[in-house]
């Protein structure tokens, strides 16, 4: 019994010191940040949001840009809704990753929250959208694809993941619209993940797939699929043969961006702090290497640019969601 008591008291001590060290790591003064930071990834481990949050934590802490310890917290559910609802109630020591879903959830009537309920801090990265077809497809270019869909919108089956109203879906709608396709009649097969879309395409179970470039690139390089168009401004590194939508007469640049935001009502100083730190982060080699590994591109915008950008994006998406037939 004595041994047990000693063991217990040691355990208690250990726990107490652990608690103590956690709460005393801040500077104690008035300066922000005054304690450990929390980083909400509004999704489970394994996706783009989680990867972005963990990459940021790694670079900010490893490169000593931010001295305070950053903890990544996963709050999955409702396409970001759960995590962002949580963020809304926190103090400025909690930040969260976001993407266009912070706009479209609201436009699709799935959420009350929109970017105006938070403090936008930055846009960090983007991926681009690609339209891919099986290698043996009779369709040879984007124009032929769209012409066929204009004649009969149900003649081709289009794979998308993981839900209608996301960037993969809406970028395709946007392009199809300019060719005069009746986009409300298109047959989309919704798959659970990008991987499922790729296997459906490889197996010939769908005729077309719309997905992010990174998901299609490896298959293209191995000569398993063809890519008809990418949604970037200029042709992409490693995919120099693939024309952009712009070159093919569609005036569209469609980024699939990811950014960072904080809870509502952050002060000027707090915003300035992150403008400085995040800019520094995007300039490190470690960050650039992570972008390269993940096939992300830098798309950095500081807080004021981000605000403006989000406003434009909201108008764009609002229009697009209506055209797609997903909302009135």
């Amino acid at each position, binding site marked *: 019994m004595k041994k047990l008591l000693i063991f217990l008291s040691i355990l208690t001590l250990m726990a107490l010191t652990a608690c103590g060290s956690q709460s005393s790591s801040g500077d104690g003064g008035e300066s922000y940040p005054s304690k450990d930071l929390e980083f909400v990834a509004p999704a489970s481990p394994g996706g783009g949001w989680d*990867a972005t949050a963990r990459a940021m934590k790694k670079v900010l802490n490893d490169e000593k840009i931010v001295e305070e310890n950053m903890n990544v917290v996963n709050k999955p559910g409702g396409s970001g809704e759960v995590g962002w609802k949580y963020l809304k109630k926190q103090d400025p020591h909690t930040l969260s990753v976001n993407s266009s879903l912070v706009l479209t959830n609201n436009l699709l009537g799935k959420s009350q929250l929109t970017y105006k309920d938070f403090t936008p801090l930055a846009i960090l990265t983007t991926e681009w959208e690609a339209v891919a077809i099986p290698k043996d497809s009779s369709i040879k270019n984007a124009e032929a694809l769209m012409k066929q869909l204009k004649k009969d919108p*149900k003649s081709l089956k289009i794979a998308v993941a993981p839900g209608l109203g996301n960037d993969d879906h809406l970028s395709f709608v946007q392009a199809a619209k300019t060719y005069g396709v009746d986009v409300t009649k298109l047959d989309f097969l919704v798959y659970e993940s990008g*991987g499922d879309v790729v296997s459906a395409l490889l197996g010939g179970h769908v005729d077309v797939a719309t997905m992010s470039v990174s998901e299609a690139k490896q298959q293209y390089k191995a000569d398993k699929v063809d890519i008809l168009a990418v949604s970037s401004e200029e042709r992409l590194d490693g995919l120099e043969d693939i024309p952009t939508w712009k070159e093919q007469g569609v005036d569209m640049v469609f980024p699939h961006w990811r950014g960072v935001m904080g809870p509502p009502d952050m002060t000027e100083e707090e915003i300035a702090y992150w403008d400085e730190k995040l800019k520094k982060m995007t300039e490190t080699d470690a960050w650039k290497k992570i972008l390269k590994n993940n096939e992300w591109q830098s798309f950095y915008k500081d807080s004021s640019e981000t605000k403006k950008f989000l406003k434009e994006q909201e108008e764009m998406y609002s229009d697009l969601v209506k055209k797609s037939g997903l909302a009135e």
Partner: protein
Amino acid sequence: MGVDIQTLMEGFKTAMQPMNLLWVLVGGFLGTVVGMLPGLGPATAVAVLIPITFGMDPTSALILMAAIYYGAMYGGSRSSILLNTPGDGSAIAATFDGYPMSQQGRAGQALAMSAIASLIGGVIAVIGFIFLAKPLAEFALQFGPAEYFLLMVFTLSAIVSLSKGNMVKGFISMSVGLLLSTVGVDLQSGVYRFTMGIPQLSEGIDFLVIIIGIYAVGEVLYNLVSIDKPKGDKKSVGKKWITKDQWKVSKWPILRSGPLGFLIGVLPGAGGSIASMLSYTTERQLSKRQDQFGKGAVEGVAAPESANNAASVGALIPLLTMGIPGSGTTAVMLGAIIMLGVQPGPLLFQHNGDMVWSLVGSMFIGNIFLVLINILLLGLLVKILDTPAKILYPVIFVLSFIGTYTLNYSIIDFYILLLFGVVGLAMKIYKFPIAPLILAVIVGSDMEQNFRKSLVSSDGSLGIFFESTVSVVLLILTILSISYPFITEMIQKRRKTQDTAGNHHEL
């Protein structure tokens, strides 16, 4: 890719490097321990242990993650056998006969058999991987929405047919499970169904929460009913090694289930749950002593264990040959290796062939390590049964909550957990079969979505379900598995009447 013996040998050599051996050992051990806890299956085990891989060389990282993966598969069935509380979908089939065995005081043998079966299943699958990875990956691509739908229908019908003699309850259990699977966003239309405005429910009820609720919490509540009763004999652990006869009856089930599990594992999305349940039902229908199944038949532990371990090796094939993750666990692994700068995809074998073959080598060694770990742990594990019930059950109760929290970090899941704890208790008291409900929750939403995708791609024609050879085979198997219980019943009845007729004759 052909098997190049030399590159394979190189791979083994890399895998045998002391550092890599250590990672296999560490990964296997951690995986086993984490996998034993309720709610912590392979996907969570790999996800929470990923930070260890940061900064590692990609080959070692992949070896470590794979070791955690199949370590968790080994570990998951430990708690199924000892406590009737599976940690993951793929460990459910191990409860069917494993738990009865440990109640009869044969826990040691059940654990030993499961370790041996897992080893053999794993080795079969690794050999399959070496020779068949590419052609199998091509074969898996032929599975379109129609084939997936039929595969899921077949698995469900096979499980329902297990509740022979009580088909109504089996079907009710299945229907409730399917209904639960419809909660959440409907992928094809984006409509939210039955979410009651709770955003946490928009992606559906996590089937792991239901498993922990019904099995672990339900089991605890069920045991509270009899907790004050003096236990008859103290449960003994029994022999710690299997007998010759047990090996004899299990030999063929193990050898059959390995390839079956491997094949199903290769199909993206199907995974260990379907593999282990199908191998169990198959062996039961092939068996000469069917009446023993569910009452502690040793081959009923061997078959699913062999299958689910083989499935975990098979699941790596789409990931490594095409860059397509076939399960939650492999998706997490994919994310991790991308972070380390490796591009998985169709070119992985060309660009990083040495890495893949080292992994194959390490899986071979890892399976042997795991059997050793498990046999060494055996003595320790069965001690769990010596813990007084009045302390053990509260501990399991609280562990269920903690395990649930690690899934989604959400308190909403606690309410769901409690609800299904009560449901589990009721099902046990009213003798409803649990497996159909759980399996229906796991495959239900995929089944519906694939059915609807099939109809969209065929423009509404049902003909799509008869188009391919695979579909027709699956259809026939489904019909067989559903009619099988009725046929055997009829044969038995006829035998009985003949017997009585014969008796009359003699009189």
